[in-house]
C-alpha cells in the first residue's frame, strides 16, 4: 500500500488523529481539552472533526455536566485502523525513499 489516506494526510487532521490515537483504547477526551492540546481555534477544530466524523474515523458523544454541555471525542475502530495503516504507509514510503 503506497496511497496515503487523504482524510488523515493534512497537517491539522493528522494532529487531531494522532492526538486521539495516543489515548488508551476506550478513553475519550473533551472538545475543550483537545482544543487546548492542539492549540487550535474552536471553529477550525470543529471543521476538521466533522470531516473525520463523516469518514467514520471519529465518534462524538454529547452530554451534560450539570447544565454545561460537554462533547467527548474518540477515534472509532475504523479511525484507529486507518491511522495505523497511514503510519505503516509513511514508514514504507520512507524505507522506499531510503533504499
Amino acid at each position, binding site marked *: 500500500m503506497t496511497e496515503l489516506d487523504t482524510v488523515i494526510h*493534512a497537517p491539522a487532521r493528522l494532529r487531531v488523529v*494522532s*492526538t486521539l490515537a*495516543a489515548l488508551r483504547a476506550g478513553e475519550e477526551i473533551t472538545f475543550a481539552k483537545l482544543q487546548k492540546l492542539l492549540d487550535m481555534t474552536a471553529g477550525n477544530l470543529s471543521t476538521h472533526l466533522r470531516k473525520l466524523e463523516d469518514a467514520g474515523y471519529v465518534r462524538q458523544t454529547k452530554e451534560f455536566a450539570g447544565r454545561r454541555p460537554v462533547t467527548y471525542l474518540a477515534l472509532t475502530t475504523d479511525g484507529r485502523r486507518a491511522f495505523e495503516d497511514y503510519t505503516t504507509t509513511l514508514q514504507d514510503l520512507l524505507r522506499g525513499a531510503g533504499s
Partner: protein
Amino acid sequence: MSTAPDSRSDHPLDPAASLDLIAESQRRVRRGTEPDCRLICLVWGIAWAVGYLVLWTSARALGVPGVVAYVVFGTLLAVAVVVTIVHSARRAAGTRGPGHRATVLWGATWFLAFGVYPFVIAGLGRAGASDDVTGLASNALACVIIGVMYLTGGASFGDRGLFVLGAWILLTGGVATMAGMPATYLVMATVGGGGFLAITVVWQVLHLRRRAGARR
C-alpha cells in the same frame, strides 16, 4: 488563543515531516494528560529531605522528635500530598474511560491505605510498643504503602518512572528501618529525599536531551 498551527492545515507534509508531527502530537498528549513525574519527585524530595532532617536533628537533641519537628514534617508532607493531587487531577481532567477509572480507584486506594495507617500505629502503641518501635514502624509502614502503591501504579499505567520511584521508596524503607533510631530519619532524608532529588535531576537531563533530539 494561538492559531498558528491552523495556517499549515491545507499543505500535506512529506512522510518524514508527517512522522515527526505524529511524534510531537503524541508527546503533547502525554505532557497534557499524564502527571509530570519530575514535579512530583521534586516536591517529595524536598519534603522528605527537609522534613526527615528536622526529625533527625530534633531526635538527636531530645531523644525523640519534638512536637515542632513533627509539625514541620507533617506540614511538608501535607503540601507534597496537595501538590501531587492537584497536579494529577488537573492533568487527568478532560479525559474519561477505563484508564481514568483505574486512576480514580488507584487514588481511592491511597486514601484507604493512609486512612488505616494511624490505626495500625496507634494499635502498636496500645500493645506496648516503645517510642523507638513506634517511630520505626510508622516510617516502615509508610514506605511500604507508598512503595507498593507506586509499584502497582507503574505496573498498571505502564509508567516506568513511577515503578522506579516505588522500588526506591521500598528499598529506602528497608534500609532506614535496619538503621534504627534516630539514624532512620537521616537515612530517610539522604537516601529517600536525596534519592528523589537525584532521580528528578536524571529525568530533567533525559527530558532536555529528548527535546534537543526532537528539535534536530
